[in-house]
């Protein structure tokens, strides 16, 4: 069951002007709920951009339009800074012979996936370096006044990225990755496909191929954000996939369809955005469900196991856990 507001959001984002009101009762739209929904998916700037591009402003209240236009403008200005800072960062890394490839939102912006740079909300600048360069980048960032507030917790498996780095003279934080997904998930999707890109000697800004960005977007949502277990969807990810596909650089019908990619498209099938059919046989869906249940169970076992190990070996983790417990009781009593 899709609520009226989500139907409108989907229509505005993915359909043509003439189809925007298809299946939507515009008189019963609750614009407060539309704000809540769109902002929870980080889609307010994209909503404005599409309303503006498709000349749909007359369907929305004036104060609503004014508000989302403000959000869009702030986001656009921020993305202009993000692109500038990504280029500066790239120069700094090349000067120090650290090969790197931008990832996620920054890579999408740099690859011109969006016609309008104001529509994608991006938290930080993600990029990947080779494992071998980890020590060098730590020193380089430290020398260039980057720092991190993250406690360095012991991890059973290596983290996929160094702690998020902040610089007081920069607007956007950066996240240097050494892997794409964390822990055991890196066995499913990893940076092996980027080896050729790393070998390239050109000192230009590098981004992965469109098909790589496509896969990374889906695996990150399914595995890192647990979409595979909760069956939740993210309009930001759907929109990324839509934009990657709409440039005709991918033929969505020919993509590989493993269980994670299939699950992504099954979860969003109700929106009828993509021309793709995932057929599930009885045995197939039974297998998928069992697979998900086993994965969820092993994930929980793995989580508890790492927590217990960390409690024994890391003082910082014990302090962290103790703070959590104190906060929990403090909130309950206040």
């Amino acid at each position: 069951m899709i609520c009226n507001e989500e139907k409108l959001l989907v229509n505005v984002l993915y359909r043509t002007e003439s189809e925007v009101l298809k299946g939507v009762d515009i008189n019963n739209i609750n614009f407060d709920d539309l704000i809540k929904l769109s902002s929870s998916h980080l889609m307010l700037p994209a909503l404005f951009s599409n309303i503006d591009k498709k000349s749909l402003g007359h369907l929305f209240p004036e104060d609503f339009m004014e508000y989302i236009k403000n959000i869009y403008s702030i986001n656009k200005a921020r993305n202009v800074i993000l692109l500038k800072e990504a280029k500066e960062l790239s120069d700094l890394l090349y000067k120090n012979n650290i090969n790197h490839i931008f990832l996620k939102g920054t890579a999408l912006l740099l690859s011109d996936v969006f016609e309008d740079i104001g529509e994608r909300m991006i938290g930080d600048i993600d990029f990947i370096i080779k494992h071998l360069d980890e020590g060098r980048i730590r020193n380089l960032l430290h020398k260039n006044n980057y720092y991190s507030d993250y406690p360095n917790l012991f991890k059973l498996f290596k983290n996929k990225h160094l702690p998020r780095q902040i610089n007081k003279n920069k607007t956007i934080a950066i996240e240097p990755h050494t892997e794409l997904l964390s822990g055991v998930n890196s066995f499913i999707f990893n940076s092996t496909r980027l080896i050729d890109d790393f070998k390239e000697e050109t000192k230009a800004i590098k981004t992965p191929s469109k098909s790589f960005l496509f896969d990374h977007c889906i695996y990150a949502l399914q595995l890192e954000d647990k979409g595979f277990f909760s069956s939740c969807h993210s309009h930001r990810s759907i929109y990324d996939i839509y934009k990657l596909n709409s440039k005709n650089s991918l033929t969505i019908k020919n993509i590989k369809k493993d269980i994670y990619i299939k699950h992504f498209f099954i979860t969003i099938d109700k929106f009828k955005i993509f021309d793709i059919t995932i057929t599930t046989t009885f045995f197939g869906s039974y297998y998928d469900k069992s697979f998900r249940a086993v994965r969820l169970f092993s994930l929980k076992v793995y989580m508890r196991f790492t927590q217990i190990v960390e409690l024994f070996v890391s003082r910082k983790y014990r302090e962290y856990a103790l703070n959590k417990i104190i906060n929990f009781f403090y909130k309950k009593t206040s």
Partner: protein
Amino acid sequence: MKKENKNSLGKNASGITRKDAIKKMGKYAALTAVGTFMILNPKKAQAQSVPPAPPGW
């Protein structure tokens, strides 16, 4: 605790209350998910550098 909450709702250094700020931005600001503001306000977004909670906590 209550006193603290009252103070946090009171005027800040710029002489504007949270209520005034929301009024100024329109009623929609109060309905906007916090994640949106975390990204848009760079300093806040940078300051949110809390590590991803260890799994399960």
